[in-house]
């Protein structure tokens, strides 16, 4: 079984998905995973889909505090010089959060957690390891030995609140669908 990754730099699209299952991620803190969030990403306001008491759709701000308090989310920044130079170069192709995540991942040799196809392509071109939300959730589920209804609920939360589902050609698409809807 693959060992659980320790230091991962997270871009915004993956952070939103993790925000949708913050309780599960906090519960998994003993795995020792550390998600480094670029300063620019952590300053952005993120929202999740939710419903009010009458069932009308609303936007709910993501509360990342439990993750920060648990030491799972750690803010990070590009250092002057090489990292900043690389950040500005990546910013030609990507938005600032994505560019900063890739620059930090490349220089510090950390995997980058992203579900974005363009960011993934650029990262792989640079030899940066990419992991996606399904990879992360599967790692947590395997390491903490949970499946069935608990895993299904977790995947459904990501689907509903973060409006995310892996693409048709993602290697874990079948795993995701099977566990999300048959748990």
């Amino acid at each position, binding site marked *: 079984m693959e060992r659980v990754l320790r230091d991962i730099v997270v*871009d*915004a*699209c993956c952070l*939103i998905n993790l925000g949708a299952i913050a309780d599960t991620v906090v519960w998994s803190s003993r795995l020792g995973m550390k998600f480094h969030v670029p300063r620019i990403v952590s300053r952005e*306001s*993120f*929202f*999740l*889909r939710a419903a009010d008491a009458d069932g009308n759709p609303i*936007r709910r701000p993501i509360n990342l505090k439990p993750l920060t308090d648990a030491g799972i989310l750690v803010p990070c920044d590009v250092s*002057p010089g090489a990292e*900043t*130079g690389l*950040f*500005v*170069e*990546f*910013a*030609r*192709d*990507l*938005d*600032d*959060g*994505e*560019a900063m995540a890739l620059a930090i991942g490349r220089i510090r040799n950390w995997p980058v957690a992203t*579900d*974005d*196809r*363009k*960011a993934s*392509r*650029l990262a792989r*071109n*640079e030899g940066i390891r990419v992991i996606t939300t399904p990879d992360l959730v599967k790692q947590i589920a395997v390491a903490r030995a949970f499946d069935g209804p608990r895993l299904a609920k977790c995947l459904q939360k990501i689907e509903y*609140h*973060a*409006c*995310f589902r892996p693409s048709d050609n993602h290697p874990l698409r079948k795993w995701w669908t099977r566990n999300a809807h048959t748990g």
Partner: protein
Amino acid sequence: MREAESVAPGVLGQRLAEARKACGKTQEAAADCLGCSRPVVIAIEKGTRPASADEIVKLASFYGRSVHEIMRPSAPQVALAPHLRAVVDQSVKGSQDLSSAIWEMQRLAEDYVELERLMHAQLPENHPPELRGPVPSGAHEMRALAEDVALRERARLSLGDQPILSLRRVLESEVGIRIFCGALPSAVAGMYAFVADLRYCIMLNRKHPPERRRATLAHEYGHFFCDRHKPGIDYLSEGSRKPANERFAEAFAMSLLMPATGVRRQFREIRETTNDFQVADLCRLSNFYFVSVQAMTLRLEALGLILEGSWRLLAENRFQAAAAKRGLNLSAQSSESNDPYPERYKFLAVQAFQHALISEGELAVFLRCDRVTAREIVRDCLNCSDVDEGGNEAMVSMRFEDSLLRSKS
């Protein structure tokens, strides 16, 4: 190493200068931010001294822009903003908001062009001819010209003499105009500018009711005939006597939205059926053409179908159009949207994202929304609802790239 071409120092300098001006900062302030002298900032803006990565990051943050906005590969466009800023009436309340809206219009137009570049999808161009010579100053001649131009334009666009369900969609898709809705100050109805690279761009006040926006759109389109190359901002205040081009645009808008032949026919049918034409009929007719009751009344007056001064009388009697329409159970029937950008713009952005030509972060910026909303927009664009064999509503995923002409082997 990167996919996008590097940005030339001249282009980078121009963008930094534009960003600085847009937020009202001076070159001295920029120099203070960098801890250098003003001539260094001037050299960076001129492109004679390349900015370092650290300087770019500092300046972008100081100007409230993302580094991506400054570094993105699209070529700099011919700016709309300076032309429009030159015609801002500083005495009108909210000129700072107007300044922001002008920049937003510029950015939306640039983003639109960038999406077209990425998707190799040129905006179709089907512009009407410009008027030959100046607009006549005589009221009768001017109105006759506006009527004639509107009639010819309806014929050119095969619109007949029926109400136009969505004028915005017609002008975007049939003529090739970029139409945006933005947060303009309440006193401003809309603005327009034409530059060759960006084409004719119009921004409407999204806070105004749909009938008002539609009238403003028709009015701004009128300017496309009479003063295409002169940018303008249209204020609501009537003030002193309007210039001939404004009066032409107004008359053109009335004729385009309420074509004389159609209005006369509708009016005659009501009269023949009821032997009268009452305020309720006026409300129904305004609803039919999706214009305000005031605009409908003035049009009927201008066509000589009702007595001149009818609107003045109604206004003096404190006629409440909204309450009257509610009382008659008349609901809005037009599909004029107040989305910030055209539907085509949205589809281009979604397609560019599906092709992984733009990232999710860029998509959210293009669509002016948060990321989860951007995900919903993608999902909604790629799925349509249908009814399955059991009569239940089901979502059907659509593959836009499938050819309907080539056979599948």
